[in-house]
């Protein structure tokens, strides 16, 4: 009985912490970066212009992270957002440069076209039952291909002021315009998640599609809503990117997919569905932008960004999964798992693989000849 009581109390503390866990995680990492940069490069990292740069970079990802939070919470994924952003940007650019559309028409048109692309994604997933991973990955190729077909190798540049204002305008004495747009979409997303049917059903669908179906929720329709929102937000990001660079080409925005998914997952939204944290997604976006900026400030080669993003994704997903598992079946010690026979087999197998690798490297080194090219 005593054991049962302690168990209960422990759970209460976990329960109380649980809603904030998603936010605490990235906040801790943000503070870690702040602390590290405060020691390593305080002068350049904390300059006002650099903080502005970080926000400007983060703003681009905020609308997409907001929408991706809904998609992932519904147990979905969207790997086509980079291409949707590029294609919408290209289409908008052509409308403005080739057909003389006014910018204030072309911009909402671009966002609507993004929404239609999201609708196509949603219909492919719900009607044709193509798994989201494959469906959106294939559509990524389609949208990127169309962008290349339309734009060829062209770089479209020099756009009306309205567009550059959206992309990089500065409200005097305040934050940049895109940051306002980004934060606004985040706030709208938070509102939608907690206060509307769409948000409530997003969580219930991700939590249990069967239960949602049984209680009469239109599961497919709400899934499609999430993909439409995702498409529209990706297109908005495309518009913002075009404005920021004052240029767009078909190969723009190649890293959107994983960057946005990373931000959302780092923020504590579960890839297994049902667990959403809009505040966490905001923190995740800020964290990634701060991390990448820190790498730049430290003059670390650009290509390391990709390595760092990957490591952050894997470690945060592993951490959240581990925390949930500990919560459920009381597995406290990581090391305890290493003593099982299954683990022993795995260790032997890994040792064999690495041993082979070292052996082959040694043989190669032994037989190595002068590598200076002969020709």
């Amino acid at each position, binding site marked *: 009985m005593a054991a049962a009581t302690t168990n209960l109390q422990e*759970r*209460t503390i976990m*329960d109380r912490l*649980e809603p904030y866990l998603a936010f605490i995680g990235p906040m801790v990492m943000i503070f870690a970066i702040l602390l590290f940069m405060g020691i390593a490069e305080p002068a350049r990292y904390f300059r006002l212009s650099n903080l502005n740069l970080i926000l400007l970079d983060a703003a681009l990802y905020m609308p997409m992270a907001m929408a991706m939070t809904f998609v992932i919470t519904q147990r979905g994924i969207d790997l086509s957002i980079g291409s949707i952003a590029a294609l919408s940007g290209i289409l908008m650019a052509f409308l403005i440069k080739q057909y003389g559309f006014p910018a204030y028409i072309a911009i909402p048109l671009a966002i609507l076209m993004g929404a239609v692309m999201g609708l196509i994604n949603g219909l492919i997933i719900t009607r044709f039952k193509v798994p989201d991973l494959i469906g959106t990955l294939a559509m990524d190729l389609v949208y990127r291909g169309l962008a290349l077909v339309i734009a060829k190798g062209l770089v479209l540049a020099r756009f009306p002021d309205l567009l550059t204002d959206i992309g990089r305008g500065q409200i005097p004495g305040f934050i940049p315009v895109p940051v306002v747009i980004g934060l606004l979409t985040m706030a709208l997303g938070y509102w939608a998640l*907690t*206060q*509307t*049917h769409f948000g*409530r059903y997003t*969580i*219930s669908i*991700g*939590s*249990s599609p*069967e*239960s*949602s179906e*049984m*209680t*009469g*929720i239109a599961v497919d329709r709400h899934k499609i809503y999430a993909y439409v929102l995702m498409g529209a937000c990706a297109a908005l990001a495309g518009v913002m990117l075009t404005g920021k660079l004052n240029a767009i080409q078909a190969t723009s925005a190649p890293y959107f997919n994983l960057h946005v998914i990373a931000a959302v997952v780092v923020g504590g939204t579960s890839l297994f569905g*049902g*667990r959403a944290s809009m505040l966490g997604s905001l923190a995740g976006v800020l964290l990634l932008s701060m991390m990448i900026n820190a790498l730049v400030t430290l003059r670390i080669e650009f290509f390391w960004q990709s390595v760092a993003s990957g490591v952050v994704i894997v470690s945060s997903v592993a951490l959240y999964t581990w925390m949930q598992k500990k919560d459920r079946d009381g597995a406290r010690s990581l090391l305890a798992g290493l003593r099982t026979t299954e683990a022993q087999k795995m260790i032997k197998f890994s040792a064999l693989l690495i041993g082979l690798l070292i052996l082959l490297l040694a043989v190669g080194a032994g037989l190595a000849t002068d590598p200076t090219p002969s020709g």
Partner: protein
Amino acid sequence: MAGKPLVQMKNITKRFGGVTALQDVNLEAYAGEVLAIVGDNGAGKSTLIKILTGVYQASEGEIFLDGKPLEMGSHSDAIDVGIDAVYQTLALADHLTPANNMFLGNELTKTVMGIKVLDNKRMKSEATRVLDERLGVRLRSMDVQTDSLSGGQRQAVAIARAVYHEDLRLLVMDEPTAALGPQETARTLKLIKALREQGLAVILISHSLDDVFEVSDRVHVQRRGRAVGVVKTAESSVQEVLGLIVGAQDAAA
């Protein structure tokens, strides 16, 4: 049982293609009574209640509510006339709070600046009230995820969802104790008794004759798609019901 039946199923037959799942079944449920439906797997229990709750439509036969014939095209039609079911899986979304689960698919709303939004506060207070007043269940906190509740508490949330409809008159419970330990089972049976005292007609489907004899007033036995007997629980025994289920007492029925 005195008085008129609340719900009457008359000569219900259901065929799936060439298979006859139900043959000429009669069933009566009364307000303030727990009717247990027992029978082996494939005896037609599930089909019977799915017809009663509007999920399936009978091939032949009629259903009467208060003596008036009932036409149901879907489960929501059944809910509209006050017939609902709590399924074995409970149909809960584990990540939502108990209150949000209770109102899932049927949320309370308010209008803020012309926009219809969820009324989370009222859903929470209503859920607390229904759980406490109707089911005598008090949760440690209403702000937890439903998957942190015990099996019995989850059951209570699922039942609360059904009884929240003021006009609920008949509640069907499909194997409510199947996944529960002894303590939780006792609590769930107490809930069923509370619902009976509130004047609800309860139909309980169960494989556990212990549970059936603990809470039911009458037992309806199905075998191979036919109703093979209805006995009063107080005047019967586990042996007799068991005999009906496996068919040893065909003559008696």
